[in-house]
């Protein structure tokens, strides 16, 4: 959720660029290894990004004063079949 972090799709592009560089065969051995380590780091970060999101279902309501607050979703409403739209 940290907004300063790079976006998932941008980091995924970075990773693909790293792979392309290693694959080009134009890097020195040391550069290849640096790129490889950077790539491994990106894979870890990307996997983390997919898993770090917290599952939550909230209902946003507005009270009489117009203030917003969220309450956890109760899925009892799901069993009602008479309200089909």
């Amino acid at each position, binding site marked *: 959720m940290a907004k300063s972090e790079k976006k998932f799709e941008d980091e995924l592009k970075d990773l693909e660029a790293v792979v392309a560089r*290693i694959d080009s065969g134009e890097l020195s*051995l040391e550069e290849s290894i640096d790129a*490889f380590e950077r*790539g491994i780091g990106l894979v870890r970060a990307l996997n983390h990004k997919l898993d770090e999101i917290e599952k*939550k279902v*909230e209902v946003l309501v507005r009270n009489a004063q117009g203030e917003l607050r969220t309450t956890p979703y109760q899925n009892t409403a799901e069993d009602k079949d008479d309200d089909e739209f």
Partner: protein
Amino acid sequence: MAGQLELSLGGSRVKALGVTQFVRMVREALELHLDEYWVVGEVSNARLAPSEHLYFTLKDKRSSIGVVMFRSACQKLRFKITDGMEVIVRGRASLYEARGALQFYAEEIQPRGVGALQLAFEQLKERLNAEGLFDGARKRPLPFLPHAVGIVTALGGAALRDMMTVIFDRFPNVHLIIRPARVQGIGAGADVAEAIEDLNREGRAQVIIVGRGGGSLEDLWAFNEEVVARAIFRSAIPVVSAVGHEIDYTIADFVADARAPTPTAAAHLVVPRKADLKRRLDETSATMGGAMNSALLAHRRNLAQLAARVREPRGVVRQIRQRLDEAIAALTEAIAGSLRARRDQVLQLAGRLRPPRAEVRRRELELLEERLVLAGARAVEANRQRLAALAAQLDSLSPLRVLERGYAVVTDTRSGRAVVDAAAVEVGDELEIRLNRGRLRARTTAREI
């Protein structure tokens, strides 16, 4: 004054009436004898007075009549009355006493040919389009991986249930913020608009789905209301419209950043499949591993070639010496051939030639050979030193260093080639794994591609 005038009319004496009196009498006669009617005609001179009463002339080929619709009745009008429009008006005739003018007092107006809702839809669409609310350039891309998804729909509706099922199936750990809204009936449009504003105020949602299941044009009307269109337009968060009606578009569809034909389709559009992203990451990692292995092998080959030359300077010397030997042999042969030819010639002529010159030549040749060998050895020595320096430099970049970090080079025992793709190996194939220290022979027990 007028009341005092007595005049003859049709054989009897009558009193003259005042204008007001007369007009009122006519009005009362009209109202008494004429009930409510539906009248069809074409609109002209339509204008809305500051009082918000609507005035226009209703006419056909031969006649025309002034129509007035009071503010209270106008508020129920869903479409705008414009000149040239064919309409059916319900109301009653009366007299506007101030001018003694016949007028039709309208209570309800229907467009002719199309439904009132359809017409209202077309009119609003045209107006908002002209204002730029549907502008493609304004439409924002949806977030690739939304952490929090805002949903505006009825809390107990099938649409919400369907969306939640699809969303959690695609991405089990996502955050949903539901802002319940009435999606049908009076006030539904205003509620939906307010819900979009609330999610913007709350601020955590990165994309908003606004929708409901399918229904008739009446049922879906909230999504054709201007207030909803404006709320979507103002939303700082991208909005996906998801009104289940497949064929027709709503005004909300035109304004939204993306349009889905059903709530379920919106869920697909907004939330990526986590399993797909994981697989893409795994595949990219594997490709990277393969590319790194290839790079390592290429560097290793280069080094091996250099090392071989450095470790075996004798081999190089031997090669040079061999080439030298061959050259000398060829030279000797050439000289000997020439000598033989001359000797034969001389013998033929005098028969008394001795071979001292051949001895001299042979001696010269031996000296030459020594010098060549010395020169060759010096050249080899210079090369050896250069290669040794190069090798020392390369040593710091040695693949062994990489192996020290725990990486390994895997080769196929049969082909001797490096394995970069699991597809190139069959279960049961023998592989050689080269580690920092030593090698392992391994048999493939399973394969995952």
